[in-house]
C-alpha cells in the first residue's frame, strides 16, 4: 500500500512538472467557408515554427457559431482563444470589453496596409479589435452571352433602371432563364442584407438621427416596390426562399441572367468544376440610385478577453492575417485562391490582378463602401447592408419576414412596410432608443 502511495505521489509530481512543458492549445472557432478551410490545411508552417502551440479547430454553421460564441464570450466561458466574427459584431463586442485590442501586432504586420474601410469598421477609438482574414463587397455577375443576344452592354456601374430593363429583356421563362436572381429568404444576413443596401442607394435609411424607424418614407416604398416588381416579373419562382446558396446554384446551372451578391461568389461562378457557365460570366459594380449601393463585410479573427492564452492567440492571428500567409497560399494553390479584400498591397500585385479577373471590381467596391455614410441622409449608425446595433439581428430578421412575405405575394408592399414600421418602433422603444 505504501509503495502504491509512493508511486502515485511520484507520478503526480512528474505530471505536475510536465505541465509547463506541455504544448499550449489554441481553440479556434470558425465558419465553413472555403478560405477558412484552406487556412486549416495551411497551418503547418505556423505549428512547425511554434512547436509549443497546438491548434484545435471548431467549425460551425454561421448562425450556430454566432449563438455559441456570443454565449461563451458574454458569460466569460473561456472556451475559445480565437473566434471568427463578422465586422458587424466587432465594434459592438469591443465596446462591451469582450475583445482584446490588437493594436500592437509588430512592425512586420504592417497594419497600415489593411484597406481603410475594413480597418475603420474593425476599430473602436482608433484601436483595432479584430484582424481581417478576408473582406468582401457586392457586385453584379451577369451572363455575357445572354446580354449579347439581347443586344445589351453592361456599363461598369449600371443604374437600377438599367438593371431592371435588362432583367426583363433577358428573361425567357419558357427556357427557365430568369433575368435577375436576388436574395428573398428572410433573415438579417439574407434578404435584409440586399434590401438594406438597395434601399440605402434609393436614399432610404433604417432610422433618422433620433432613431425613429423610416419605413413609412416614400424612398422605402419605391425601393421595396421596385424589388418586388422586378422579382415578380423577371425573378425565379419561389424566390422568397432563395438565399446566397440557392441563387448560387441557380446561377451556376445557367438559370439567372444577373445575380447581385457578395463578391466572394465570383470565384464560385467562374470555377468550371462547379459552374456550367464559368466562361460566360461578366462582372459589374453594384447598381447606382441616388448613391451607389454599398456592401462591406469582413470575416475577421478576434481574441476574446476571456482567453487564457492571449500571447499565443495573438501570434496565430498575426500569422494568419499577414502578407506572408497570403504568399504561402499563392505558392501552394495559386494567386486566385488567396483570401481577398483585406490588404492594399494585394491589389498592387500584378500576379494577383492577372489571376483574378474580378480583383479590380472587388477593390473598387470595397473602397467605395462608406460605413458611416451609407445613404443620402445622415444616420446615427454605422453599416452598409446591416445596422451596427445589437438589436439588428432580431429586428432585421423580423422585418425580413415581412418583406419576404411581400415577395411571396402574401402581403402588399404597403402592408409589409406598415408592419415593418410597427415592429421597428416597438423593438426600438423596448430597447430604450434614443440612448
Amino acid at each position: 500500500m505504501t509503495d502504491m502511495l509512493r508511486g502515485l505521489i511520484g507520478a503526480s509530481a512528474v505530471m505536475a512538472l510536465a505541465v509547463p512543458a506541455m504544448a499550449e492549445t489554441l481553440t479556434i472557432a470558425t465558419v465553413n467557408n472555403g478560405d477558412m478551410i484552406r487556412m486549416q490545411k495551411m497551418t503547418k508552417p505556423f505549428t512547425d515554427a511554434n512547436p509549443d502551440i497546438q491548434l484545435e479547430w471548431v467549425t460551425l454553421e454561421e448562425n450556430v457559431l454566432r449563438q455559441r460564441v456570443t454565449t461563451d464570450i458574454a458569460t466569460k466561458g473561456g472556451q475559445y482563444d480565437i473566434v471568427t466574427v463578422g465586422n458587424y459584431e466587432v465594434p459592438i463586442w469591443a465596446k462591451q470589453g469582450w475583445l482584446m485590442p490588437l493594436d500592437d501586432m509588430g512592425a512586420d504586420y504592417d497594419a497600415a496596409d489593411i484597406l481603410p474601410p475594413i480597418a475603420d469598421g474593425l476599430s473602436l477609438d482608433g484601436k483595432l479589435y479584430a484582424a481581417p482574414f478576408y473582406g468582401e463587397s457586392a457586385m453584379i455577375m451577369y451572363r455575357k452571352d445572354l446580354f449579347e443576344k439581347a443586344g445589351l452592354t453592361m456599363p461598369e456601374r449600371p443604374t437600377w433602371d438599367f438593371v431592371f430593363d435588362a432583367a426583363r429583356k433577358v428573361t425567357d421563362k419558357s427556357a427557365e432563364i430568369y433575368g435577375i436572381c436576388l436574395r428573398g429568404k428572410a433573415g438579417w444576413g439574407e434578404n435584409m442584407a440586399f434590401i438594406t443596401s438597395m434601399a440605402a442607394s434609393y436614399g432610404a435609411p433604417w432610422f433618422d438621427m433620433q432613431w425613429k424607424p423610416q419605413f413609412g418614407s416614400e424612398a422605402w416604398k419605391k425601393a421595396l416596390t421596385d424589388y418586388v416588381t422586378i422579382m415578380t416579373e423577371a425573378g425565379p419562382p419561389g424566390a422568397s426562399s432563395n438565399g446566397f446558396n440557392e441563387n448560387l446554384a441557380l446561377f451556376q446551372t445557367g438559370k439567372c441572367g444577373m445575380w447581385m451578391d457578395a463578391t466572394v461568389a465570383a470565384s464560385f461562378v467562374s470555377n468550371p468544376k462547379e459552374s456550367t457557365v464559368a466562361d460566360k460570366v461578366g462582372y459589374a459594380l453594384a447598381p447606382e440610385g441616388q448613391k451607389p449601393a454599398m456592401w462591406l463585410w469582413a470575416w475577421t479573427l478576434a481574441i476574446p478577453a476571456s482567453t487564457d492564452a492571449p500571447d499565443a492567440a495573438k501570434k496565430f492571428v498575426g500569422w494568419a492575417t499577414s502578407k506572408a500567409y497570403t504568399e504561402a497560399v499563392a505558392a501552394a494553390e495559386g494567386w486566385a485562391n488567396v483570401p481577398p479584400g483585406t490588404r492594399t498591397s494585394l491589389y498592387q500585385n500584378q500576379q494577383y490582378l492577372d489571376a483574378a479577373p474580378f480583383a479590380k471590381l472587388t477593390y473598387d467596391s470595397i473602397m467605395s463602401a462608406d460605413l458611416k455614410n451609407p445613404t443620402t441622409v445622415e444616420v446615427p449608425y454605422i453599416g452598409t447592408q446591416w445596422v451596427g446595433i445589437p438589436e439588428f439581428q432580431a429586428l432585421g430578421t423580423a422585418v425580413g419576414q415581412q418583406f419576404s412575405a411581400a415577395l411571396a405575394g402574401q402581403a402588399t408592399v404597403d402592408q409589409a412596410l406598415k408592419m415593418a414600421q410597427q415592429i421597428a418602433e416597438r423593438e426600438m422603444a423596448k430597447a430604450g432608443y434614443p440612448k
Partner: protein
Amino acid sequence: MARRVSNRRRWFFTILAWGVALAIFFPILWTILTSFKSEADAIASPPKFLFFDWTTENYAEVQERSPYLRHFLNSVIISVGSTLLGLLIAIPSAWSMAFQPGKRTKDLLMWMLSTKMMPAAGVLIPMYLLFRSWGLLDTRLGITVVLMLINLPIIIWMLYTYFREIPSEILEAARMDGASLKNEIVHVLTPMAVPGIASTLLLNVILAWNEAFWTLNLTTSKAAPLTTFIASYSSPEGLFYAKLSAASTMAIAPILILGWFSQKQLVRGLTFGAVK
C-alpha cells in the same frame, strides 16, 4: 367472397405500408445518394436520382478534415452513459410510483413531464454559467449528466408504464418469501421488466445520440459528439450539400444499424401496454 375482400384489404394495407415506409425512408435515401455526388450534381435541376458520376471524394474530404472517430466515441459515451445513469435513477423511482403510489404520484409524473415543455434556450445562460463555475464546459461528464436529466422524465414514464403491467402480487410473494427491497427490485422486478428496460434503453440512446441543442452549446472540441461534426459542414457561402450529406450519413449510420437490429424490441417497447 369474404376471403377475397380480406385479400384485397391485405393487399391494400401492404401497399399502403410500403408507400408510407418508403416516404419516411426517402429523405435518408436521398442523403445517402447525395453523399456520392459531386457538389454540382447535388444541386442539379432536375435532380439526378441514380444516373450520375458516383464518387467517394466527399467521404475522403470529410475524413481528412474532421476527427470522426473522436466525435463517434464521444457520441457513444454520452448517449450510452446518460441512458445507463438515467436507468439507475429511474428504475427505483418508477418502482415506487408504480407499486407504492402516494396521493401526489400522478401530479408528480405530470410535473416531471412538464419540464420537457420548457424551451431549452430559456435556461441556456444559467446552465452555461453553472457549467463554467463547475469546470464542466466541454467535458463528457457534464454533457452526460445534462442529457440524462433532460431524458429522465421520458425514462421514468416509460418504465412506470411497463412496471404497471407487472402484477404486484408477484412482488408481494417475493416479499413474503423474505426478499429485501433491494432483492425485490434487482432480482424479481428487473428480470421481469427486461423487455421494457431494453426498449427504454434503446429509445433513449437514440434520443441522446440525436440531441443537438445542449451538445452544440455545452461542448466545444474534446467532448463534442457527432452533432457538432455535422454542424461543421453547413456553409453560408459556398455549396456544401454533398459533403454535408457524407457527414450526415457517417453520423447516422451507427444508430441506423443499431435501430435495424433492434427494431423488434423498439416496436415492442413503443406499443407495450397499448394492446393486451
